[in-house]
């Protein structure tokens, strides 16, 4: 799998993404500066990493979403290419209109930085085939604006089309209450595009790939992508 990790001013998780992809694919991804106008021609996966692009000025992800490279990301999406937006990358994807909804300030106004359980909603997508359906995984979260909201029509559409990728839950897989760290509608931690080739999520699976740092539950996502690209 050929992956391109985008770098915006203020991205800070790009090396984590690179490490996770390299571990799964055995191949180092390209690191692409936001001012570029094209992606390498054999790109299978584009990753928008976490961080604080442009210092979160205006709205999180708003300025990065208008960067020169984003037109080629849109073209990649329309060709059915794979796109993964993590944390700030998710915020950039919604600001760019590549995913619906908006990520608002956490409802309790606190920046949350902790380990978090997620329920994998389905395992028949390019991102989740190495997990079991409804598997509970433990990954890291670190965000101040992760409260996913959308108009009720959009939420109904996301639910109806099975486009919720991950929901916040507790260790037993139960939803709601203190298991929801930011107030997200329907406990949504990540969503897919209509063709299931774009995933945006607030948690950081790329940080849970090595037992040395607390677990390997994030590996499945990168291994799923690698299998998908190999089969394509």
């Amino acid at each position: 799998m050929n992956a391109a990790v985008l770098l915006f001013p203020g991205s800070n998780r790009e090396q984590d993404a690179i490490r996770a992809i390299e571990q799964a694919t055995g191949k180092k991804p390209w690191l692409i500066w936001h001012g570029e106008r094209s992606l390498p021609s054999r790109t299978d996966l584009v990753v928008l990493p976490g961080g604080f692009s442009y210092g979160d000025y205006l709205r999180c992800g708003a300025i990065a979403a208008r960067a020169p490279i984003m037109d080629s990301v849109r073209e990649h999406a329309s060709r059915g290419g794979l796109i993964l937006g993590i944390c700030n990358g998710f915020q950039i994807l919604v600001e760019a209109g590549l995913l619906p909804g908006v990520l608002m300030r956490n409802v309790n106004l606190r920046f949350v930085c902790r380990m978090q359980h997620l329920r994998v909603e389905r395992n028949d997508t390019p991102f989740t085939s190495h997990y079991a359906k409804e598997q509970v995984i433990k990954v890291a979260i670190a965000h101040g604006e992760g409260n996913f909201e959308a108009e009720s029509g959009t939420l109904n559409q996301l639910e109806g089309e099975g486009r919720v990728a991950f929901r916040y839950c507790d260790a037993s897989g139960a939803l709601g209450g203190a298991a929801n760290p930011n107030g997200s509608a329907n406990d949504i931690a990540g969503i897919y595009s209509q063709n299931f080739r774009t995933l945006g999520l607030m948690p950081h699976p790329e940080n849970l790939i090595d037992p040395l740092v607390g677990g390997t539950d994030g590996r499945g996502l990168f291994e799923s992508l690698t299998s998908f690209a190999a089969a394509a």
Partner: protein
Amino acid sequence: MKARVFVTLKGGILDPQGKAIEGALKSLGIEGIESVRQGKIFDIDVATEDRRAASALLQSACEKLLANQIIENFAVELP
């Protein structure tokens, strides 16, 4: 021409920052405040003196960047 653009949250969108400010004002003993919603103001110098052109320009700036129309309204004020 100096213009001013207001970006405010749509009604019904939860505004935790506004709520926190509202709570702080109340705890300061400032009486009579019923609710607070936080928004943004942009003071923008536009190159034209033509009001219609300035208005169209700023409308487009709001739609393309300044406001996220899923959750925000905008208003343009010209002198």
